[in-house]
């Protein structure tokens, strides 16, 4: 097996930010991302996903620890204050 240790960054945020965050993430050097629609509750209240723009998205980025750090730093700086946002990382083995 040729598994490469990598970092997985998961971002849960407001669906309205999708296009903007795609630009940020790829601009910072991510080679890819995966987005899934969801709903949830956090410090910014409940977003039940009822309205077109009222749901959450869950973005996954697989990359180097440095890339994930850069993305986290940027999102904390610009978006954390005004938008619902949760970010966490975990280490994974990339298998291909």
């Amino acid at each position: 097996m040729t598994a490469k240790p990598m970092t997985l960054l998961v971002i849960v945020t407001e669906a309205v930010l999708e296009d903007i965050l795609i630009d940020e993430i790829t601009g910072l050097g991510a080679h890819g991302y995966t987005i899934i629609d969801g709903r949830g509750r956090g410090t910014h209240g409940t977003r039940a996903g009822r309205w077109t723009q009222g749901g959450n998205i869950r973005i996954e980025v697989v990359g180097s620890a440095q890339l994930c750090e850069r993305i986290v730093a940027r999102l904390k700086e610009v978006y954390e204050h005004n938008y619902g946002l949760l970010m966490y990382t975990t280490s994974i083995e990339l298998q291909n």
Partner: protein
Amino acid sequence: MQFEPVVLFFLLGIFAGLVRSDLKIPGSIYDALSIFLLLAIGLQGGVKLAEFPLVELIVPSLAILLLGSLIPLVSFPVLRYLGRMTRADSASIAAHYGSVSVVTFSVGVSLLAQEEVDFEGFMIVFLVLLEMPALVIGVMLARYGAGTVRWGKLFHEVFFGKSILLLAGGLVIGFVAGAEGIKPLDILFFDLFKGILALFLLEMGLVAASRIAGLRDYGLFLTSFAIIVPLLSAVAGTILGWALGLSVGGTMLLATLYASASYIAAPAAMRIAVPQANPALSIGASLGVTFPFNIFVGIPIYFWMSKFIHSMGA
């Protein structure tokens, strides 16, 4: 006072929401219904517009735009200084009330059809025109002297956002194809219109219910604002409509446009352009107070006002 059965579906939705029923209109269906409504309204306007000399619209359009821009400009200081709200919240709410609601307009159209009162087809042009400027004004009020605005993104969002695009696109298609060319589409876009509006109002009721629940958090000031500003805007619209020589139906629809508050285009635009604003406040006021007020109380009043001013003038 005139009674329009379609609002009963809104009541049913509110009821379902208040008793916490598991009734849900799936998001994709909601999207489809709104695409339908916007296209259908546009087509209806386009067909009527085709029989009209367009140049005659320039002067009334300017007048209507000018008066429409006053709504957010007057609302802002009221919210900021009377209501002691933050700059961002004041600007965002002002933008919501300066912009317009397509569904409120549709209920107005529906009442006119019920009462067999005609209206000028070009009213839909004003609907399109009025949706935008308030959003731009709102952003300017929020950012005045502070930070940079991504104007390009904002203009793009407003002009090519789906509501303007479908309204204007329908308008153009209806205009180009004309009543004859649109005929095979009549049954979908015209005959089904009211039934689909009913389903849409059901969903609106469900959402409004969740907003109504949060009303006490917004306080008395915002609730009063959400009733008084539409009423005053409607009075201004009635006078302007009458002064411009619009028919009873057209005058009533102009009053309705001014009185209505946006809850689709404005929230999306403000969330991006004025992120410091609390969306619960602006959507709560426009959807939890103003929309039901207009549907149940406002529109019949605006109809009465329009008939009154026209009977005076006569």
